[in-house]
């Protein structure tokens, strides 16, 4: 966003989605105002009904908080700095509808009073950041956090990912809005009247900055604030965590109940693994040294390689490295079993069990370290 002492609002394509006036045509701006208006209307009605007299003080102060968060210049890994929008934490603490209004109010004041973002483009900025950003962040947070406990690290990760996704979806929408301008609006000589870059340039230009810088900033702020709230004000996370237990050790059984459908799905997939036997031959590039001497295998390699014959001798590097490690269960076929199908199933069960055990051990170690730290 730049410093506000020296006219902000023009750091597009680099780390901010605040669209100034002049980048979008008036008809595009009008259409985006019309697109944002129903969300504002529904949000205001729902909040008036829900909050009644608390609406004015809560929205005012939280919109002010969103505004100030947008001004934080965050040092990021890699030596860069970035600005968060605050849409992630707003959705998580207030819910999507209040976040839509709070962020829209912050954007209005930024645009009109501080000149960060255009007045005609306010509808576009609100639709991208306040509406799409809030809804995507909220849905992602709820989907990833599930019914995990309020103090669970999963909620921290969910918050970070939610913020990251929300900001990037907003950036993508802005990029599309820019990218269609040259197609739709040009003068008699063919010169674009507004944003001059087509989608093939606008999308990568916007997304590179947001996937690497702005998105990371949002991830850091959202995850960091949720982690902070878990320690200091866990009650503020309750609004968007219905049914979640307060602490991890309170209800581990509930956590496992939630995972049961996934375990059932995993078991079904294990039973289906013998289907892999139907695919004859080796996957491309997964040859063993013996395949280079086997005529049938050589024919398969040639067919899969645009009829290029493989070398007659085994490549030296392949031969050397193939002796480094001998798998306990090579080709998913335990030596003590005659049935290949049962061998596949048993390998799948063993592999999945090993992964789950590793994840459980890592989770317990991380939990213990978090409690002691």
């Amino acid at each position: 966003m730049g410093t506000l002492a020296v006219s902000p609002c023009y750091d597009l394509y680099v780390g901010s989605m605040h669209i100034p006036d002049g980048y979008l045509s008036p008809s595009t701006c009008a259409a985006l105002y019309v697109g944002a208006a129903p969300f504002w209307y529904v949000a205001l009605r729902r909040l008036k009904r829900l909050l009644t007299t608390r609406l004015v003080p809560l929205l005012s102060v939280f919109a002010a908080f969103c505004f100030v968060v947008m001004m934080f210049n965050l040092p990021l890994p890699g030596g860069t700095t970035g600005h968060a929008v605050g849409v992630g934490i707003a959705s998580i603490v207030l819910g999507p509808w209040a976040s839509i209004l709070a962020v829209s109010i912050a954007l209005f004041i930024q645009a009109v009073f501080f000149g960060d973002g255009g007045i005609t483009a306010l509808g576009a900025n609100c639709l991208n950041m306040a509406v799409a950003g809030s809804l995507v962040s909220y849905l992602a947070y709820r989907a990833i956090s599930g019914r995990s406990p309020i103090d669970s690290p999963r909620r921290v990760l969910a918050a970070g990912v939610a913020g990251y996704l929300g900001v990037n979806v907003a950036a993508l929408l802005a990029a599309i809005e820019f990218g269609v301008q040259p197609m739709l609006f040009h003068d008699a000589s063919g010169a674009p009247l507004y944003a001059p870059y087509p989608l093939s340039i606008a999308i990568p230009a916007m997304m590179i900055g947001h996937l690497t810088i702005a998105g990371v900033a949002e991830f850091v702020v959202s995850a960091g604030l949720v982690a902070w709230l878990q320690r200091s004000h866990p009650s503020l996370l309750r609004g968007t965590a219905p049914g979640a237990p307060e602490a991890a050790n309170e209800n581990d059984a509930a956590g496992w109940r939630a995972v049961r459908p996934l375990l059932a799905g995993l078991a079904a997939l294990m039973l289906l693994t013998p289907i892999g036997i139907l695919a004859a031959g080796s996957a491309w590039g997964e040859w063993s040294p013996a395949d280079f001497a086997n005529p049938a295998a050589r024919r398969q390699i040639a067919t899969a390689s645009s009829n290029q014959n493989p070398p007659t001798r085994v490549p030296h590097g392949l031969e050397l490295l193939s002796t480094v490690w001998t798998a306990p269960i090579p080709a998913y076929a335990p030596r003590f079993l005659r049935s290949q199908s049962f061998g596949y199933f048993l390998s799948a069960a063993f592999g999945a069990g090993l992964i789950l055990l590793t994840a459980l051990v890592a989770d317990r170690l991380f939990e213990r370290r978090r409690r002691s730290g």
Partner: protein
Amino acid sequence: MHGFFGALEHALECEDLARSDGLLQKIDPRVKLIGILALVVGAAASRRLEVIGVVFAAGCVMALFSHVPLRTLVLRVWAGAFVFTGAIALPAIFLTPGAPIRHLPFVGWPVTFEGLRAATYLVSRVETTATLSMLLVLSTPWTHVLKSLRALRVPVVLVVILGMTYRYILLLIETAIEMMDSRRSRTVGRLEPSEGRRLAVATAGVLLSKTMQLSGDVYLAMQSRGFRGEVYVLDEFRMTARDWGWLALFLASAAAAVWIGQH
């Protein structure tokens, strides 16, 4: 920190200029809001650079007669717009398809006529609209800008929320500055980036908890003063003949910009 101080400086400067005795300061805020918005739309809709130039010139003349210092316009609007939008528009000179009029030496990139026009459209539109928007805020007290939103049928509750939000922005900025100052005054040497991140997140976290506490306190204060959910805005604006004249002039100019700009 620099951004925080910049925001406070901007707020103070706006208050000073809005109280001065200039051309725009004497016009009804509703007329200014509608008129400047109309001119912004006119400049945005025009397909002719000359029309955009005339609107820009009109904005400069209004700024001159409203005692807006040239330094303010240069620092807050023109320099930033030219540098940033110019940087964005520069590749368009080479990337926009069209008839090449020149090739860059050494690299041989073609500069097209359409690319030059596209870049000029973008920069001139951004400069013009940003100048007009800034003039509105520099010549009008912020509370009057918000109240004049009622002329655009913005719901009263949103106008009240906007007003309160502005007040609490300044309060939270001061709080953030104090927190960062107190941390930095206890820090020797430079902060590592990871420490800087932790500081920023912790500051935001404390601000968040203060925000929630503040909202509760404000709510109780409003209730204790009789607030039961109804919001009102005191309407102190009265239109004069001169205001109607200005409104007609603004709207006619915007309409002319759109009509001439389309032909």
